[in-house]
């Protein structure tokens, strides 16, 4: 098989932004965070993603502001390089090649030109061993420098980067591992270590989880697994150290951070409560609860005005020092596992999957932006380790996006399973889904799968459950009152020889329902609930089912656990073809006949795209990734591509996204598409390179515009320059809509100006024709205006005449003159630039 070079797998957005603590720039305008193989820069005020610093080839594992220049940032990556960036302009300044995979970076003001890095122990074969090294960054003018001066500070340190911190003025560095706290004094070149017992009488778990050093005082704060915070003092003398203990967190303390002045200590853990301890006053503390997701990192800005917390649900919260949340930066939430399928909301075309605990998230793929979370469970989430809580496990949309069905479940592990089936209707007014029906005991056992019928008129939901039954739900008529209810009720209960159903699917026109029971596929008619036929191809339990679409709607495709992919012809009820391939996910494109099958064989995943009517695959991609793929979705494109290339034709109508077991969202992209995306992304960077507040947008732009207006338009007209035109166009696009003249006026003027400058006299009849049509259009809405009619023509009119000097000015009709006068009252002098720019 020839490897396709045109279509390739790209990682698509939504990567982790909570891996390492975010950094707030010195002027508090930007938040920087690691995100996959790039560093993302967000504005603290508007929460907008401004740009990303791209250049690393592997996961970025740490960022730190350059202490010598507050506009620069160091980043280290697993690809073995440290890069220095200007983060405001997004320019790479220098690359230092270290040569080992790096896992964390620390800098200190005291040690200029030196960075401290976590690297894996090269001597140790185990992955657990980590080493803290100091690297002297050589000063040279070159772009790429190899830094060879490595000196080990300590070996055997904790893999957790929050277990290392610099002390007061960089005099010492403290690092903890398991039950031992080490302090290395640079001046004495000595390490003191203090250790705790593993457990005491009360069963406390004393292992260190994080560490923070007071900026002005000799004090180290350590967090522990059982939620205690210890403040260590007097550790300069090894024998006479003391510590005090404070306890509020009931689970491990994930992060600790001193404010820059050292007046407060911030701590956070699984409880998702940010706690602020007043330093030196014992137990006085403030709380900021329910931030959502357990807190992984806390950082403070250098002026102490802003705090940043990053959460386990891939979110960064910006908090003012008065403990008020002022901004939330939300990435694509990826929990422990995505339990629901990937889905597309038919209305917003947003990707829908599990979000925050108990929520469904809507994520715009187009803008790589989290849209909103829909609260499904509607219960207070208790952040506590090991607590079994309701999770959304299934969700389905109907074809118009008017109904959403969800299943939430609790107690998967224990014996008593609780689950609810909920149906949500879309509310036009609030632009959101509203709970319509809650069904408490939809089945007696867990719901395996559900699907909506795809017909336009009646909406029906079919659920299959482990109790061996499938149920059809519809928004039906009550038998007693004979009235239309707006809630859902059960319409039909079906089963087949008490076998456990495995999957269900509606045909494209909803005239057939296929439910697979172990090895048997049963075909039902949803109108009469009659069992039409059964299909069976042993051995192996049916795993996936899908009907063909469009011209292939007579085919039904099924996959079994015994590596068989079967295609049934429903007209003859016979097996059309079958092939032996291990399919982990079968997904059909709603807009074309294509079906994509991900197969997992010998530790890598292959993709086959085929049409049911021909057994030869349309497209094959070997070795898509090394993990098994269970979630995939076809996303309809905004505008179809027109690739004629056979290998990429299947991507014309919709795009295939899939989720690996490592929760990476990947997609296939074609060469042309990539070009387009690249150009659009660069434009975005230019536009947003300055942090723009809405206020700035409103006033700053306006001021620019006025400046432009002040310059005489005739001068601009005299200098026909290409860039000038583009400036005018951006001006036109950037002017707020309410300031612009009506589009009808703009359009006709725009078109006619083009005509004049391009063709002159030759196109005169055409122009007249256009003007007359314009006149007709305007005469409909003309107002009676009895002012003097022939006044001096405005600049626009002059310009028009200028464009065609050698042409006799056409006599203006009355209606036209009136129109002109109306136009004259609005100021379009900026249009002059546009018109002039045309050759």
């Amino acid at each position: 098989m020839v490897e396709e070079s045109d279509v390739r797998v790209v990682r698509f957005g939504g990567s982790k932004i909570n891996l390492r603590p975010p950094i707030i720039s010195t002027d508090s305008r930007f938040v920087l965070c690691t995100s996959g193989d790039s560093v993302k820069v967000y504005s603290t005020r508007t929460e907008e993603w401004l740009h990303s610093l791209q250049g690393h080839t592997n996961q970025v594992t740490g960022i730190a502001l350059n202490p010598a220049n507050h506009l620069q940032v160091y980043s280290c990556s697993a690809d073995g390089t440290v890069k220095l960036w200007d983060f405001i302009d997004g320019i790479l300044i220098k690359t230092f090649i270290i040569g080992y995979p790096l896992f964390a970076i620390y800098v200190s003001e005291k040690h200029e030109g030196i960075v401290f890095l976590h690297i894996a122990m090269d001597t140790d074969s185990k992955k657990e061993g980590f080493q803290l090294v100091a690297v002297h960054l050589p000063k040279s003018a070159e772009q790429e420098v190899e830094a060879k001066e490595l000196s080990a500070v300590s070996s055997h340190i904790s893999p957790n980067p929050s277990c290392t911190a610099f002390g007061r003025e960089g005099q010492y560095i403290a690092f903890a591992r398991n039950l031992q706290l080490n302090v290395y004094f640079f001046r004495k070149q000595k390490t003191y270590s203090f250790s705790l017992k593993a457990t005491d009488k009360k069963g406390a778990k004393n292992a260190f989880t994080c560490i923070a050093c007071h900026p002005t005082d000799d004090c180290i704060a350590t967090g522990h697994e059982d939620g205690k915070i210890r403040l260590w003092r007097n550790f300069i003398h090894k024998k006479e150290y003391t510590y005090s203990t404070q306890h509020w967190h009931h689970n491990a303390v994930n992060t600790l951070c001193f404010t820059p002045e050292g007046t407060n200590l911030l701590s956070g853990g699984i409880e998702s409560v940010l706690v602020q301890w007043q330093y030196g006053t014992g137990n006085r503390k403030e709380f900021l609860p329910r931030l959502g997701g357990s807190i992984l990192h806390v950082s403070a800005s250098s002026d102490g005005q802003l705090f940043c917390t990053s959460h386990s649900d891939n979110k960064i919260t910006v908090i003012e020092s008065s403990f008020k949340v002022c901004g939330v930066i939300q990435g694509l939430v990826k929990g422990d596992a995505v339990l629901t399928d990937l889905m597309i909301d038919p209305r917003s075309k947003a990707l829908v999957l599990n979000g925050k605990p108990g929520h469904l998230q809507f994520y715009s793929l187009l803008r790589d932006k989290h849209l909103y979370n829909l609260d499904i469970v509607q219960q207070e989430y208790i952040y506590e380790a090991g607590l079994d809580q309701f999770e959304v496990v299934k969700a389905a949309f109907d074809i118009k996006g008017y109904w959403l069905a969800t299943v939430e479940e609790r107690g998967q592990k224990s014996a008593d399973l609780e689950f609810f089936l909920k149906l949500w209707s879309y509310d036009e007014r609030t632009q959101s889904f509203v709970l319509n029906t809650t069904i408490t005991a939809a089945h007696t056992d867990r719901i395996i799968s559900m699907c909506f019928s795809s017909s336009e008129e009646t909406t029906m939901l079919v659920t299959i459950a482990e109790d061996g039954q499938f149920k059809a739900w519809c928004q039906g008529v009550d038998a007693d009152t004979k009235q239309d209810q707006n809630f859902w009720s059960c319409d039909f209960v079906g089963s087949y020889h008490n076998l456990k159903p495995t999957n269900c699917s509606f045909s494209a026109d909803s005239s057939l329902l296929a439910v697979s029971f172990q090895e048997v596929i049963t075909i039902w008619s949803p109108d009469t609930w009659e069992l039409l036929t059964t299909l069976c191809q042993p051995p192996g339990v049916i795993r996936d089912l899908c009907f063909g679409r469009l011209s292939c709607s007579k085919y039904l495709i099924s996959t079994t656990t015994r590596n068989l992919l079967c295609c049934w012809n429903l007209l003859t009820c016979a097996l059309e073809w079958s092939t032996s391939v291990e399919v982990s996910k079968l997904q059909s494109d709603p807009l074309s006949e294509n079906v994509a099958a991900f197969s997992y064989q010998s530790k890598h995943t292959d993709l086959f795209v085929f049409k049911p009517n021909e057994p030869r695959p349309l497209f094959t991609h070997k070795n898509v990734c090394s993990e098994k793929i269970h979630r995939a979705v076809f996303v309809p494109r905004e505008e179809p591509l027109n690739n004629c290339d056979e290998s990429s034709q299947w991507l014309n109508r919709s795009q295939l996204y899939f989720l690996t077991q490592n929760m990476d969202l990947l997609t296939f992209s074609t060469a042309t598409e990539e070009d387009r995306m690249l150009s659009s992304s660069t434009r975005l960077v230019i536009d947003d390179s300055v942090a723009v507040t809405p206020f700035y947008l409103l006033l700053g732009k306006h001021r620019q515009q006025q400046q432009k207006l002040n310059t005489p338009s005739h001068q601009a007209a005299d200098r026909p320059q290409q860039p000038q035109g583009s400036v005018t166009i951006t001006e036109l696009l950037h002017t707020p809509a309410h300031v612009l003249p009506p589009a009808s006026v703009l359009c006709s003027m725009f078109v006619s100006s083009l005509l004049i400058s391009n063709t002159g006299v030759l196109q005169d009849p055409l122009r007249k024709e256009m003007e007359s049509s314009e006149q007709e259009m305007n005469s409909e809405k003309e107002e009676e205006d009895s002012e003097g009619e022939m006044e001096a023509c405005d600049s626009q009119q002059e310009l028009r005449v200028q464009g065609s000097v050698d042409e006799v000015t056409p006599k203006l009709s009355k209606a036209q003159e009136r129109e002109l006068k109306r136009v004259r009252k609005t100021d379009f002098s900026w249009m002059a630039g546009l018109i002039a720019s045309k050759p």
Partner: protein
Amino acid sequence: MASFKPTKVQFLPKLGEKVTEDTLYWKNYKSPVQIKEFGAVTKIDFSPLAPHNYAVTASTRIHVYGLHSQEPIRSFTRFRDTAYGGSFRGDGKLLVAGSEEGLIRLFDICGRVALRQFTGHSKAVHVTSFLSDGFRVVSGSDDLTCRVWDVPSAVELSSITEHTDYIRALAPSKLNPDLFVTGSYDHTVKVFDMRSGSSVMTMQHGHPVECVLLYPSEALLVSTGGRYVKIWDLLKGGQELVSLKNHHKTVTCACLSSVGNKLLTGSLDRHVKVYNSSYKVVHNFDCDASILSMAVAPDDEVVAVGMTNGVLSVRHRKHKKDKETLTSRRRRGPSYRVFVKGKNFVPRQDDFLVSKPVKQYLRKYDKQLKSFEVSKALDTALQMWTRTSKPEVTVAVIIELNRRGTLKNALAGRNEESLTKILNFLLKHIFDPRFSRPLLTVGDIVLDLYRQVLHQSPVVERQLQRLMEVLGREAELQQELLQVLGILDTLFASLTPRKEVAALAALPVDQGPQLQAA
């Protein structure tokens, strides 16, 4: 930062109770007004003219009441013996009544003395009525005859003796002045035509007929007698349409509501039942004594029921208007007025609005849950008022505690008094299918926690004993139900035709070799 989400109380519908529009309609009556009469109330008849006064025949009198009065407007007392069957003429100006002595009297509604007296019956006349032309009166008597009288001349026009027992039911046709229906204790219902002078149709009710009733279209006829209510289709030659058996004593009276022609029947078993158009019982009025007579005012404004103990109970319809005036009249306390002060202020157009965040009000148990005070939250939820009138709230808190994994902590460390409260709640609700699942977990945890110290408190021990008994009985019942279900399943399985096999046999023959029709 999200705000605290309060506990969600699930409102599960009670099983077996369906709220339909009919039930809502018939529930919408005020509590009955009781009027004491001198003897058993045998007949109530509403005047067809507004203001729809009604005549109540009881003992030796006929009282005429206004719709809203509790004192009689007028009374006719010139009976020497018990009066029966006082009914209005179609214009509401004349009233006719029979009596125990066999005399039929005709009254002007404004006068006191009888205008006419029809003599001829030899035994008591229980039913009298005007024919629809208004000039003739028909009567049914215990002397087995049915007689028609001319009002102007007070002479007997005809006498028909076809029944073989007492005639106790009579209904004249409203569409044809010559037709009337009689029901008798000889188990038959007969339709008489005056033009032929004899019965034209006879239906066998099967029990002594107490009441007959014609639908306004006069295609359907209702007869009651014994425990049965039967509906006859007159257009199909008196074919029985439905036979209803919803009362457990003799059905004595029936009438039709004027909105939607719903059938109401009253019986000696002290119930009035309301049927919908497919003859299912949709509502039930309970009375204090056996019901003898009943009538519904036009527009269903009033339902009047007469009983054997001489009590006339009158129910008036509730109106929205009444409710509104009630609430508006209620004066609120000063604290309430302070609370709503300025809330109903409507801002003017050019006013600048400063919105202020709406404060979230939490219930007490939610406040306690918010601060993780689980024991206190459970105590709050188990307070007297909540646990008796809103058990679903208590159960919701229990479910929430269970979800948080703190139910055990909340139940632990209780004294005898608070433990009794919990056990009482369990005893009352543990087999309610809506609540049984969480409550069984509570029972389990209570047993686990207090096993060691149970013997110290005889009260708790006794309650646990009772709980055990109750659960044992419930388990037995469930088992029996399962057995019945099994029996029914086999019955159904043997009854259904083997359609599936036939369908499979009819499959297309050109199946692929791999296909196996299971």
